[in-house]
C-alpha cells in the first residue's frame, strides 16, 4: 500500500487530522480538505475507498473504524456524511465533536444549513473551515469568534456589492 506509506513517511510523528471529507448519501463528494501532502491520484483513491466503506455501514454502528493505518471518525447529518481521518493516538470523541462544531458553524451561518447551501456556497464552507481548523488542528473553538471573523469578511463584501452594480453577473 504505497498510499499510506506516503502518509507515514511524513517526517514527524505528530498528531493531527489527516483529512476531512463531506459526501452525500449518493456518494457525491461535497467538500474535501487535506492536511497532508498527497497527489491528486492518491486523494481520489482514498476518497473512493472511504466513501464506499462508510456508506456500507449501518445506522447504529459505532462512529469509528480502523481503516489502513488510520482511524476514521464519521457522523451523518441528514443527507451528508462528515468524515475525518485521524491517527492512531488521536482522540476519537473530541474529533466527533469537531465535526459537530463545524456543523453548528455552518448551521448558524447559513441558517439551518442543508446540503444545497454547501453545494452553492462551497467557497464559504471552506472559509468557515479554515477559521475553525488550520493545518488539521483546532484554531478557534469559540463559535462566536469564528462567525465574527466570517461576518467581518461578508461585511467587506457587501460594501463592495453596493458600490459596484452586478451588471456583469448574467454570464
Amino acid at each position, binding site marked *: *500500500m*504505497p498510499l499510506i*506509506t506516503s502518509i507515514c513517511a511524513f*517526517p*514527524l*510523528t*505528530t*498528531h*493531527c487530522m489527516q483529512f476531512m471529507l463531506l459526501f452525500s448519501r449518493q456518494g457525491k463528494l461535497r467538500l474535501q480538505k487535506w492536511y497532508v*501532502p498527497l497527489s491528486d491520484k492518491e486523494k481520489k483513491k482514498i476518497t473512493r475507498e472511504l466513501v464506499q466503506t462508510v456508506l456500507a455501514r*449501518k445506522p*447504529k*454502528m*459505532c*462512529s*469509528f*473504524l480502523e481503516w*489502513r493505518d488510520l482511524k476514521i471518525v464519521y457522523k451523518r447529518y441528514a443527507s451528508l456524511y462528515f468524515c475525518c481521518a485521524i491517527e492512531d*493516538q488521536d*482522540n*476519537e*470523541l*473530541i474529533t*466527533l*465533536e*469537531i465535526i*459537530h462544531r463545524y456543523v453548528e458553524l455552518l448551521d448558524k*451561518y*447559513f441558517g439551518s444549513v442543508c446540503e444545497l*447551501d454547501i453545494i*452553492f*456556497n*462551497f*467557497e464559504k464552507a*471552506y*472559509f468557515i473551515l*479554515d477559521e475553525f481548523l*488550520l*493545518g488539521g*488542528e*483546532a*484554531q*478557534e*473553538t*469559540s*463559535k*462566536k*469568534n469564528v462567525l465574527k*471573523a466570517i461576518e*467581518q*469578511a*461578508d461585511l467587506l*463584501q457587501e460594501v463592495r*456589492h453596493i458600490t*459596484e452594480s*452586478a451588471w*456583469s*453577473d*448574467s*454570464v
Partner: protein
Amino acid sequence: MPAVSKGDGMRGLAVFISDIRNCKSKEAEIKRINKELANIRSKFKGDKALDGYSKKKYVCKLLFIFLLGHDIDFGHMEAVNLLSSNKYTEKQIGYLFISVLVNSNSELIRLINNAIKNDLSSRNPTFMCLALHCIANVGSREMAEAFASEIPRILVAGDTMDSVKQSAALCLLRLYKTSPDLVLMGEWTSRVVHLLNDQHMGVVTAAISLITCLSQKNPDEFKTCVSLAVSRLSRIVSSASTDLQDYTYYFVPAPWLSCKLLRLLQCYPPPEDGAVKGRLVECLETILNKAQEPPKSKKVQHSNAKNAILFEAISLIIHYDSEPNLLVRACNQLGQFLQHRETNLRYLALESMCTLASSEFSHEAVKTHIETVINALKTERDVSVRQRAADLLYAMCDRSNAKQIVAEMLSYLETADYSIREEMVLKVAILAEKYAVDYSWYVDTILNLIRIAGDYVSEEVWYRVIQIVINRDDVQGYAAKTVFEALQAPACHENMVKVGGYILGEFGNLIAGDPRSSPLVQFNLLHSKFHLCSVPTRALLLSAYIKFINLFPETKSTIQEVLRSDSQIRNSDVELQQRAVEYLKLSSIASTDVLATVLEEMPPFPERESSILAKLKKKKGPGAVSVSELEEGKREGGELNGGSDRGADTAAMAASNASTPSPQADLLGLRSTAPVGSAAPSAGSLLVDVFSEAGPATPSAAVNDDGFLSSAPPSEDPAPPLSEADELLNKFVCKNNGVLFENQLLQIGIKSEYRQNLGRMYLFYGNKTSVQFASFTTTVSCPGDLQSHILYMQEHFVEPLVEGGAQVQQVLNIECLTDFCDAPLLNIKFRYGGALQNLTLKLPVTINKFFQPTEMASHDFFQRWKQLSQPQQEAQKIFKANHSMDTEVLKAKLLGLGTALLDNVDPNPENYVCAGVIQTKNQQVGCLLRLEPNAQAQVLSHTHTHTHTHTHTNLYSCL
C-alpha cells in the same frame, strides 16, 4: 436554486452550478463543463481587461470544476493576480484557489510568495490571516524557506492581534512538520511556551498544538511547559461550567483545550516537582470524579466532550504507569463503559482497556471484566466493536485464563466475520503457543483451528505446530495419534493433510503398535486424501511416503507400487514426477542403512522469533505489537524449542538440509517463496548419482514486498564511498563495536549485535565542533543487487539538527536474506557553517556476522570436509600474513569471525580448524575452514556448500 443568504453571491456561478446539477448524464455534465471552460478561456485570453469581480467569478468556477474531479490546467495566473487585489473577497478566492490547486510551478510560487509577503507586512489583520492560512494549507518547502523565519516574530510580537497569533501558531506548526530544519525557535522558545498563559483561550488552543509538536522533538528546551500546562489544566478543570463563556461546550469547559493539555503532558514523564505533580494528580482525580456525576445535559455532545477529556486523562494515567490507584480507578470507569448503551463508548472502553491490560498495576483489574468482554465478542452487532473485544481478550490473556480465552476465541471463529478471521487465527495460534503448559492442549488447539478455519490458517501457523512437535519429544506420540484421528473425518482441510502427512511421516511409528493405526492403515488414510490435494501438498505427501518406507519396511512394496504408477512417475508436474522417480529409485537401490541416514528424523528447529508473531505484526502495521510483546514471544519461543544447546543441532540440520532432498526444506525457510526442495545436491556420496538430474538449485532471490527498502534516490547525489573506509571496514570484520569514522567535524561510533540472521546496529553520530549541524540526514542504501540479499530497516530518523558537542543515535535493523558480498552504504549529509558536507561510508555488515559457531568432532569434520569438495564448494588461497602470527591473536581473530575453533581435530597441531553455519533467512550455509600456517606464508583452504568468494575475501583481509 436556494436563496443565497449571505455575501454578494456570484450569480453567474450559481447559474453554472444549477446547470451542472440539472445535467441528466455524465456526458451532459462534461459537455456543459467543456463549454464553460471554453468560455472562461476566451475571457481570460480576450483583449478586454477583466475587472476583479469577473476574474474572481471565473476563478471560482474553475475551482468548482476542479472539485467535481476534473483537471484544470489554466487560470493559475488569474488566481495569483487576485492575490494582489485590495478587495478582500477577491483576495480570498485567489487564496482559496491556490490552496486547493497547489502547483509546484516555481515561477508561480515566487509570485505567490510575493503576494503573501505583501499581505504579511500589510498590518491588516484580515489580510495577514488569509496569507497565513494559505501558507498553512500549502505548507510547501518553498514557503518554509521564504517565511519560516518571519512567522515566529509575528507569533510573539506584542502588538499582534489574537486572531493573527492563532493563525501564525498553526501555520508555523505546519511548516515545522514539512521542514523542521528551517523552523528554528531558538530565542523565541520561552515566549512561545508562555503563550500557554495567554489570556485569550483561542490563542492557547492554537499555540498548544505547536508547543506539543516542538516538545516531542526538543523535550528539554520546552520542559517548562509542563508546569504551565498543569496550572492551566487545573484552572479549567476546577472552573464552573459557565466560567469560560463561549469556550464552554455543552456545559463542558474548554474540552478541546483540556484534551490538548493532557496530550502535551504525555510528551513528558510525571513532573518531578512534588507540588506540580500533586496538582496534576488532583486534576486527574477530579476528571475521574466528574465521570461519576450526573450529566448536566442529556445531549450526546455533552457526554462526548466530557468523555473525550476522560479518555485523554486515562491515556495520561497509562502513560505515567506509576499511580496504581489512578490506574485501577481508570479501569473501573472503563468497566462501566463496557456495558454502556452508546456503542461508541463501548468501543473506546475496549480499546483503552487494551493498553491498561499491559500495565502491571491494572492487569488484574482488567481481567475481572473477562466475562463482559467475552459477552461483547458474542453479542456486539458491529464488527469493529467485536474486533476490539477480540483484541482485548488477546491483551488480557495470561497463564491463568489462557484456556478459557482460547476456547472462546475458537468458538467465536466458527461464526466470525471473514474480514477478521485471519487475524483471529494468528492470535489464537500465538496465545496457544505462548501459554501452553501441556503441549497436547497446544496441538489440540491448532488442529481445531485448522478444522474450524482451515482456509485462514496461513503457512506460518502450520509450520509452527510442526516445529514445536519436532522439538518436543513428549508431545510427538500424542500429535501422531491426534492427527491420525483428525484425518479420519471424511472432509478434512488440506492444511490438516499437510500437518498429518508431515507428522505421520516423522512419528507414525509411535502409534503403529495399535492395529487400528498400523503402518498400512496410516498410509491408506493419507493416500485417500492424495488426489484431492494441490501439488505442494502432494509433494509433501510423497516425502511422507518415502519416510514411511524407512519407518515401516513392510509398506515398501505398497508404496513403491504407488510411486511407480503412471499418475506419479509420469505426472505432468515436474516436481511431483521428479520426487516419484527419485524416491522410487532411492527406495530400490539404497541399503537400509543409507535409507535410515537419509531419511533420519528431522533434527530440532533452531530457536527463532515466532514467525506467526511477525506476521501478526506485519498485518497490524508497525506499532500494533509492542516490542516487549515480541521479546516475550521470543523468550517463549526459546522455551518451546527446548533450551539453548543449539549449536550442534543447527550444524546437523544444515548438513541434513544439504544432503537430504526433502520437501522439509520449505519449513526451514518458513517462506512461501522458498523453492520446494531448495537444498543443493551434495557431492561425494551415493546420493549424487541418484539426484544428479536435479542440477544445482539456485537460492531464490528474496521477494521484498515489505516496502521497507528505500529505493527512492536522495535528492542530492550521495558522495562516492570513501576509499579509506575500506580499511576502516576491515577492523570490524572480527569486532562489533568501535569507531567507524572520524574527521575534524564528525565522529561515528558503532555498536552492533547479531543473532541468527538478524542484526541490530546502533550508530552514534557525534558533533565534534561547537557549532550546530543543520539539515543532518542519513540514508542507508544497498548498492547493486545487494538489496535482494540484505533487508534493513531504519528504526529512528535522526533529528535534522545536531547541536555542537552533542551526540545523536540511530538504530538500524538488518536481516540477512541470502549470502552477500558488498557492504551497505551509509550516506551522511549535513550543513556545517553553511557548507554542505556529504560523505558515504560502508557499513561494517559482513557475511561472517551471521556465523553461528558449530562444534564437531574430528571424525565428523573430515567426513563433511570430504563431502564438500566439488570445485565450486571449495576455495583455497595462499597469502602472506599482514599481521603477527601470534597464536593467541590468531585464535581470538578466528573466534571473532564467529566460527567455533575446534581443538584436537586436525592431526597437525599447527593448523587451525573452524566450523560454523552462516544463518540467512532463506537458507543456512555450513562453512568449514582450515588454516595451515607456516613461517613464510599461510595457506588457507576453506570449503562450504555454496560458493561465495566474498567470504574468502573477508577472511583474508581479516587475517
